[in-house]
C-alpha cells in the first residue's frame, strides 16, 4: 500500500483527503502537515511515496516546499491540490518544479484517486 502525506493548512481539506486516501484500499495516509516547512520535516520522518500538497498556505507555501522536496528526495511524487489549479501560470510553474499533477478544488473523490493511481 502506498504511503501518502497530506499538506494543507485547512483542517477540513485534510480530513476530506485523509478519508479518500484511507478508504481507497490502495493508499494509507501517514500524516498531515500544516505548511511547507512541516512537509519537508515529515517527508524525512514518514518517508511517504506520495505527497498531496496545497499551494496557498501561511508560512512556507506549497510551491516553495515543492522545490525543496523534489531537490531533497528524487523518489517522492508530489501532487498539488489547490483552488488555484485553474490559473495557467501556477499550474505551469508547479509542473516545471516537478509536480506530477495538479488537482483543482473543489475536487471529486474519483478524480483524486484516478490521478493518484496513475502515478
Amino acid at each position, binding site marked *: 500500500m502506498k504511503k501518502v502525506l497530506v499538506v494543507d493548512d485547512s*483542517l*477540513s481539506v485534510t480530513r*476530506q483527503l485523509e478519508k479518500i486516501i484511507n478508504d481507497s484500499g490502495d493508499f494509507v495516509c501517514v500524516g498531515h502537515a500544516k505548511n511547507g516547512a512541516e512537509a519537508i520535516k515529515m517527508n524525512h520522518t514518514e518517508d511517504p511515496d506520495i505527497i498531496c500538497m496545497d499551494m496557498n498556505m501561511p508560512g512556507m507555501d506549497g510551491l516553495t516546499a515543492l522545490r525543496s522536496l523534489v531537490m531533497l528526495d528524487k523518489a517522492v511524487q508530489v501532487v498539488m491540490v489547490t483552488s*488555484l489549479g*485553474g*490559473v495557467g501560470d501556477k*499550474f505551469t510553474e508547479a509542473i516545471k518544479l516537478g509536480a506530477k499533477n495538479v488537482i483543482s478544488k473543489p475536487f471529486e473523490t474519483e478524480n483524486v484517486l484516478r490521478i493518484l493511481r496513475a502515478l
Partner: protein
Amino acid sequence: MAVKFFGQFLVEQDAVTGESLLHAIELQERTNLKLGEMAVAMGFITQQDIETAHSAQLSKDMKLGDLLVELGFLSPKQLEEVIAHQKATHLYIGEALVKVGALTPEKLEQYLEAFKADQAPYVANRVELPAWLNENTAAWEMTVDLTYKMITRVLGIQFRPGKFVEASVLSSNHMIAAMDLSGDLSARYLLSVSAGVQKTIAKAILKEDNVDHEDDEILEDTVMEFVNIVCGNVVAKASQMGVTLDINPPITLHPPSDGLAVPDNYRCVVFPIHVGDDEVMEMALFIK
C-alpha cells in the same frame, strides 16, 4: 468541477503528460509575440522605442499599446493592425500540442468538446453592480456570479440572489470568512453566515450528513475552505479574462453585535443571498 484551463484539463484527463504540455507552452512562448515585439517585427517601431515606453510606464498607469500611441511611436491605426496580427497568428495551446506531436487533430477536437462541456457551468452571467464600479466590471460581475454558482454546485443550497446594497457597516452574524484579493483588483472578499448556514456548508465540505458533534474550529474551517474555493476559482477565471489576481490564505472574523465597520478608504457592497426566513447569508466586497 472547478474552473480550469485547457492544458490542465488535458493533463488531468491523462490525455497528455505534464512534460509534453511544457513543450507546447515553450513553443507558444517562442511563437506568440508580445505587443511590443510584434510592433518591432512589423517594422513600426524600434527596440529603443519599447524601452522608452517601458520607462514611461513606471510613472503612468497605461497599457503598453496605448502608451506607444501617446508617445507618438505608433499611430492608432498601426496599433489596431498590430493587435489584429497578434490575434490572427496566435498559437493556441491545443494547436501547439498537435505541433509537438502530443495530440492528433482528431483527439484535439474531441477533447475541446469535452472541455467545453466541463466548463459550461462556469460561463458568466450578468450581475447588477453599483454604477461607480465601472473599471474591470466583467471581473467584478464574475466574482459575484461565481459565488452564486459555487453555492449551487459545491454547497447544493437553494437560494435567491438579492439586489446589492451599499453599506458603511457589515451587519453582525455568526461568523464571517474573508480573503484578500490583490493585483489588478484590490478588495477584501467576505462571506457572512448564520449558524445554520455554517452547518450546511460544513456538511457539504466534509461530505457528512450530521455535523452536530463537530467543534467550532472545524465548522469555521469549512466556511474558510469554501471561501478559498470560490476565490481560487475567481483568480483562475480572472486570468482567462486577462485580469491578474492573487490571494492570501483565508481568515475568520467574528463581528461585534453592532456589525463590522468598513475600513477607511474602502467602499462596501453587500450581495444578500436569501436562503430562508431563519438564516442569513451575505457576500460582501470591501473595495479600495
